[in-house]
């Protein structure tokens, strides 16, 4: 079964016309499930809010209190990109809670794969700073809940933007392997291949920055040749996917050239990184072209559920081979460390 979290009816984080991170994104993502023919496989997760205790594994109490108060006072601009309104706090709690519910559902063996279509996204949010449309780092909160139970978590972030928040939060944590493919140069300006983790977690941050125009075959090559050996050494017990769909060629915010079909190929590879069924949760991050988002989510989940839904052919022929070679040198040939399973 496919566990699905996220409820558009509870979404009160509407920051106004013209902002690309908007409520219809959730509806588009959920429509992708229908379009992929997965309706009968879906089990909807009960919405719940992340507790203060769960959030505080990642975000300090003063930050949470300040953000809550800021929203309750009506909100405003948190940075040039990031806006909060009165309903943002509760919506953010529900988004983080949905990822926690997905992990709990998988743990209770209610499904083989979980997908969370909730917003605001999370991977740019630092421990004490909102940024890049993100308020709470949803994936980081779930990863931290898992590592608190002794699990080893692989976070694969295929959003077109580097997940600077997730990287920073787990920079020195030997229980989390963070892998990001992203366009470079691009916001937020982090994610160089040389960023490989802190002294407590050497080699457990894997960045594969790719040039504009890179196609799906380049990302697949990166996962096969760079990421797979690192994952094998790390031996994760869980896989969380920061699934942004703004690497799609139709996305207005960036210039990678993926298609919906590519996400099916990426998903199949990422599923193979998990130790078995029921240990992969896919969490929506970016993706701002609603049609591309719908098709790409459908292709991702169909692939994870052994279905056949590829509304667009996979892409190939774009640049990026040199970038993958650079990452290969850093993480495989030179072997910059990397914790192995205890």
């Amino acid at each position, binding site marked *: 079964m496919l566990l699905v979290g996220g409820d558009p009816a509870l979404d009160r984080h509407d920051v106004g016309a*013209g*902002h*690309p991170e908007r409520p219809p994104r959730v509806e588009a993502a959920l429509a992708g499930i229908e379009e992929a023919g997965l309706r009968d496989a879906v089990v909807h997760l009960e919405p719940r809010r992340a507790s203060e205790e769960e959030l505080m594994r990642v975000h300090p109490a*003063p*930050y949470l*209190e*300040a*953000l809550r108060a*800021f929203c309750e006072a009506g909100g405003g*601009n*948190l*940075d*040039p*990109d990031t806006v909060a309104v009165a309903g943002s706090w509760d919506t953010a709690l529900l988004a983080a809670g949905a990822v926690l519910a997905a992990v709990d559902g998988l743990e209770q063996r209610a499904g083989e794969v979980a997908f969370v279509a909730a917003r605001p996204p999370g991977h740019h949010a*630092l421990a*004490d*700073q*909102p*940024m*890049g*449309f993100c308020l709470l780092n949803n994936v980081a909160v779930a990863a931290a809940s898992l590592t608190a139970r002794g699990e080893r978590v692989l976070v694969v972030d295929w959003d077109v*933007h580097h997940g600077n928040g997730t990287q920073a939060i787990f920079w020195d944590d030997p229980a989390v392997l963070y892998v990001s493919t992203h366009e470079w*140069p*691009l*916001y*937020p*300006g*982090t994610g160089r291949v040389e960023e490989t983790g802190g002294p407590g977690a050497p080699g457990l941050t894997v960045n594969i920055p790719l040039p504009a125009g890179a196609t799906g075959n380049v990302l697949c090559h990166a996962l096969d040749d760079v990421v797979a050996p690192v994952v094998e050494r790390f031996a994760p017990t869980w896989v969380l996917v920061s699934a942004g769909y703004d690497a799609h060629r139709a996305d*207005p*915010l*960036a*210039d990678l050239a993926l298609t919906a079909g590519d996400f099916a190929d990426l998903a199949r590879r990422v599923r193979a990184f998990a130790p078995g069924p029921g240990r992969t949760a896919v969490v929506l991050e970016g993706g*701002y072209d609603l049609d591309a988002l719908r098709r790409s989510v459908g292709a991702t989940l169909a692939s994870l559920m052994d279905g056949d839904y590829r509304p667009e052919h996979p892409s190939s022929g774009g640049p990026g081979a040199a970038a993958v070679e650079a990452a290969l040198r850093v993480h495989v040939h030179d072997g910059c460390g990397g914790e192995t399973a205890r």
Partner: protein
Amino acid sequence: MSVRRILVAVDDSEGAARAVRFVASVAGPLGAEVLAVHALGLLAEIGDRPVPAQTHRAEVAAMLEEWASPLAAAGVAYRCLLVDGNPVQALLSAAEQEAADVVVVGKRARAGVPGIQLGSTSQQLVQHAPIPVVVVPEAG
């Protein structure tokens, strides 16, 4: 210490304009080169609504040149630099990569939110920059 390279943060705000005017007045006497740096976020304000910054890089670069034009008028040697990221991180990164000796920013009217690292770019730069930071006040 000698000041050979000044980094000034520029955007469409009045505070940034004050900072540029201040730098235009001091860079010549100091014999310093100026780097006018703008942090490119996810969105850019062009016209009256936010647009994707990445696909409007050329327009933002042109706006950056215009924001920095008082430097040209003052006959100061300067370069314009677009850097990806949030203002504080982008300015710190540019200052390090370009070996700037001092960072100049305008003080914005908007107050920060206690407990959240945001709002005041100048406050965060003062806290985190390894080089001197000049904050140009409203009366400057």
